[in-house]
């Protein structure tokens, strides 16, 4: 039997077949599984779920029962999870159909997908450029309209930066809004599952489906659900903080022009822009790379070749661990594990990790102070448009490009990127950061901006 779900999935699979060879969004396409799920839905009739028959792609850092989950690493190349991540299970319950698993930087460590152990993904607006990362494959799948939405995860900007680079909407909710159960851990105090979507209404719907307390993740929090998005996005009287530190040296003038136009358009709708200061922003890159690497060095110690994943044989147990990890992890992952090990080691902990944790609190306090005066903070999502593949060969220069997305992650705040026009042929994103648990307001601002700068697909 053919019905609406089968038609949606067939169309998604056709777009994947037509474009994915050139763009590399997917690591696995579950053609048979998706079609079978769609047929079952069509037989069942209207399921009543908010995502009935909607094809969704899932970042390959989220476990999918029976479907290979690699986290972009050779070490997990053959890993088939025996369970679904909570966000994936909630998607399925809402009637969504998982069409495949998308590419990412290995263990979500990167900003370009060039650190995937399998292949880089390409930006559909210009295939010589990176789509951003680490949720780059999910961003490409949505930007090329292979699927209307995809799941990603954001540790320091891994949803917002690729959304900005590919001209789509990407939201990282408040830390604790979405369960991390079944998300391959990178830095547990920062990791948060979120949504990449073609438009704000879809992002809002998917986010509400995956949100909510989960007994399997003690850091998920019971909170009232996100208020539904109104049809007409009213930002009249809303106070928007515009931090000087995000419009400083290093910001591409064309990106600044587009973002300031977006702010003027919000003012024309009755919002009030207020200059604010977030002085600890300058320490965000140093703070983030210390905290995240420290947590990664601990989280990734579980990959030892014993219970799942690849194994490289050794004479002794320790030799087997060392060989498995040394050959299984890529260069960037090893670099971060070693950095994390260093900042946690005796003699260096106080000078690096403890200082970074103190700084993290100052960054959170800066925001708390500013949110006494304003309802949201708006900034560019990234200092530049999408960079060329291979352009950021020096690790530090790649890290520095994350400067605008890291602070909201360190403070655990909800933040999104919404398209606000183009610099040349490349999309520019406006970042909207909200108070804790106030996803509704940042989505409202995004809907207004979307009204001023309608989104469009990257490919015909």
């Amino acid at each position, binding site marked *: 039997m053919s019905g609406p779900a089968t038609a949606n999935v067939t169309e998604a699979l056709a777009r994947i077949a037509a474009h994915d060879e050139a763009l590399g969004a997917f690591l696995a396409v579950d053609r048979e599984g998706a079609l079978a799920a769609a047929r079952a839905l069509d037989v069942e009739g209207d399921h009543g779920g908010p995502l009935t028959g909607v094809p969704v792609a899932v970042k390959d850092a989220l476990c999918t029962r029976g479907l290979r989950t690699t986290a972009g690493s050779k070490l997990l190349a*053959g*890993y088939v999870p*025996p369970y679904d991540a909570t966000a994936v299970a909630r998607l399925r319950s809402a009637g969504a159909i998982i069409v495949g698993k998308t590419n990412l930087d290995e263990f979500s460590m990167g900003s370009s997908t060039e650190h995937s152990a399998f292949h880089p993904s390409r930006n559909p607006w210009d295939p010589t450029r990176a789509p951003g990362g680490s949720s780059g494959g999910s961003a490409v799948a949505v930007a090329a309209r292979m699927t209307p939405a995809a799941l990603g995860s954001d540790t320091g900007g891994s949803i917002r930066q690729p959304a900005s680079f590919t001209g789509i909407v990407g939201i990282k909710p408040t830390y*604790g809004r979405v369960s991390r159960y079944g998300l391959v851990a990178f830095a547990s105090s920062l990791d948060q599952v979120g949504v990449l979507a073609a438009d704000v209404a879809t992002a809002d719907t998917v986010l509400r489906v995956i949100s909510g307390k989960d*007994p399997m993740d*003690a850091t998920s*929090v*019971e909170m009232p659900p996100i208020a539904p998005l109104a049809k007409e996005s009213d930002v009249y009287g809303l106070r928007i903080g515009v931090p000087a530190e995000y419009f400083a040296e290093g910001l591409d003038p064309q990106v600044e022009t587009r973002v300031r136009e977006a702010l003027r358009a919000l003012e024309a709708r009755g919002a009030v822009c207020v200059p604010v200061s977030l002085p*600890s922003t*300058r*320490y965000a890159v*140093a703070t983030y*790379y*210390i905290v995240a690497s420290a947590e990664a*060095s601990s989280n990734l*110690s579980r990959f*030892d*070749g014993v*219970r*799942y*994943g*690849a*194994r490289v*044989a050794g*004479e*002794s*147990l*320790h*030799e*087997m*661990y*060392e*060989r498995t*990890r*040394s050959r299984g*992890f890529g260069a960037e992952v*090893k*670099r971060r*594990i*070693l*950095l994390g*090990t*260093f900042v946690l*080691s005796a003699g260096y902990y106080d000078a*690096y990790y403890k*200082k*970074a944790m*103190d*700084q*993290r*609190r*100052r960054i959170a*306090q800066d*925001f*708390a102070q500013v949110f006494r005066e304003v309802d949201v903070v708006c900034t560019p999502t990234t200092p530049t448009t999408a960079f060329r593949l291979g352009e950021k060969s020096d*690790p*530090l220069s790649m890290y520095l490009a994350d400067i605008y997305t890291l602070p909201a992650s360190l*403070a*655990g705040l909800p933040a999104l990127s919404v398209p606000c026009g183009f610099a040349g042929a490349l999309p520019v994103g406006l970042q909207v950061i909200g108070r*804790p648990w106030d996803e509704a307001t940042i989505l409202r601002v995004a809907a207004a901006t979307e009204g001023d700068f309608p989104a469009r697909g990257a490919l015909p």
Partner: protein
Amino acid sequence: MIVDDALVLRLERLAALSLEPEERTRVAADLTRFLGYVAELGESEAAAPAPHAAEDAGIVQTLRPDTVAPFAGRAEAMAGAPELDGTAFLVPRFNP
């Protein structure tokens, strides 16, 4: 701070990694550069910050009941193991 090969070797041992010599030299250079960059953290004011915003908001984290329950997926969970003897994971001897 200069990170040399000897320090990287110590970190490798702590992290159960073993780098090739040229990889080690590259990591030493990358870590030296990164630690030079993060030295700016030392410049920030010394006053201890107040507790984290989430603590201020009075959020209480709840845990699921700590009860023993049967796990149905044992065979499925073990299916991906590199080496099994049917019921247990097999590993090389600690001291061969």
